């Protein structure tokens, strides 16, 4: 019998190597600032952050699967739930929630109230078009693509833009059925 997916990443987070979040937060801030200087256009920075996140996501999925012991998710709904409850917790130490499902179960929102990426961050006026946390949407998109779910991830709410939480809309575009050369038990 397949193991039951963990409902929270607390135990996993407690067991992984952890570092001072300040270093992570300030490093991310310094990277965004350097990208703004080097790439000049805010739109280009958004694009590159998303690309960097995507590249991280396609690698991170392996670590996630290895450490989380999550069994195969039956559908998109369960997958997003695992990302929110286990994924965010085990890497960033925070828990997200999933809401706003559409009728056919292919689009939902991941809500993040606590986000270590934005501690001590305030956007200057000339960065209004910046999606500061765009790396996160890229990570989710990249990781999901590695488990055969092609998605579109967009920011609906952003605390840095004056909203009360971070809301990422995750829309399933295409699910490629996987074919296995062997069965799990063999």
């Amino acid at each position, binding site marked *: 019998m397949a193991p039951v997916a963990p409902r929270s990443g607390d135990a996993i*987070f407690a067991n*992984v*190597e*952890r*570092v*001072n*979040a*300040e*270093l*992570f937060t*300030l*490093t*991310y*801030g*310094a*990277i965004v*600032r*350097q990208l703004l200087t*080097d*790439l000049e256009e805010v739109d280009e920075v958004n694009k*590159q952050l998303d*690309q*960097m996140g995507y*590249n*991280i996501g396609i*690698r*991170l999925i392996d*670590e996630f699967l290895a450490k989380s012991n999550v069994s195969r998710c039956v559908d998109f709904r369960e997958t997003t739930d695992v990302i929110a409850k286990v994924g965010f917790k*085990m*890497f*960033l*130490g925070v828990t997200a929630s999933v809401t706003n499902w559409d009728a056919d179960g292919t689009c939902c929102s991941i809500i993040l109230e606590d986000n*270590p990426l934005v*501690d001590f961050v305030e956007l200057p006026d000339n960065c209004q078009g910046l999606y500061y946390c765009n*790396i996160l949407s890229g990570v989710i998109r990249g990781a999901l693509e590695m488990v055969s779910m092609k998605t579109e991830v967009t920011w609906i709410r952003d605390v840095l833009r004056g909203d009360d939480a971070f809301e990422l809309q995750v829309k399933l575009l295409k699910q490629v059925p996987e074919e296995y050369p062997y069965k799990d038990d063999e």
Partner: protein
Amino acid sequence: MVREVSESCIDNLIRETIDSYCNRFYADKPDLAARKIEAIGYQVGHQLSERYTMDRPRFSDHLEAIKFICKDFWSELFKKQIDNLKTNHRGTFVLQDNKFRWLAHMSVDPSSAHNVNSADDNSSPSAENIAAQAMSMHLYFPCGIIRGALSNLGIPCAVSADISNLPACSFVIRIKA
């Protein structure tokens, strides 16, 4: 309680940033990519040292400041202190970390390892060995952190790294007169 994130967050972030700068933004200009990575480190070091010294009296001399980097600052970042500190008493300090955490996951042929230098040096990393170059790129970030941290303490300097003795990594700080 101190807020924490998984170590793999910072590892992946740094790795991807170096990759983006070296292979996408400035693929044909490794010197420039190195300078940008050092600049990111500088900013991080500057801000961290500002935060970590907020409640302290000013350091009386350079050695006191360097000791702070070796002990408190390094501990905050890597949960360990610098293992060995040497100085020629004329403004050069060598800080050795016997097992530098950010190199622990990398493998490289030690014979091809060479020195890298942070700001104010125009020697470019040779491309003889891609792994060694990738590793040297990874050292610009911590070199920048140290330079930024000391600069915030009012000590302008140049910082380079020496990995000829892996897995130990030595950071050489040259204080500007």
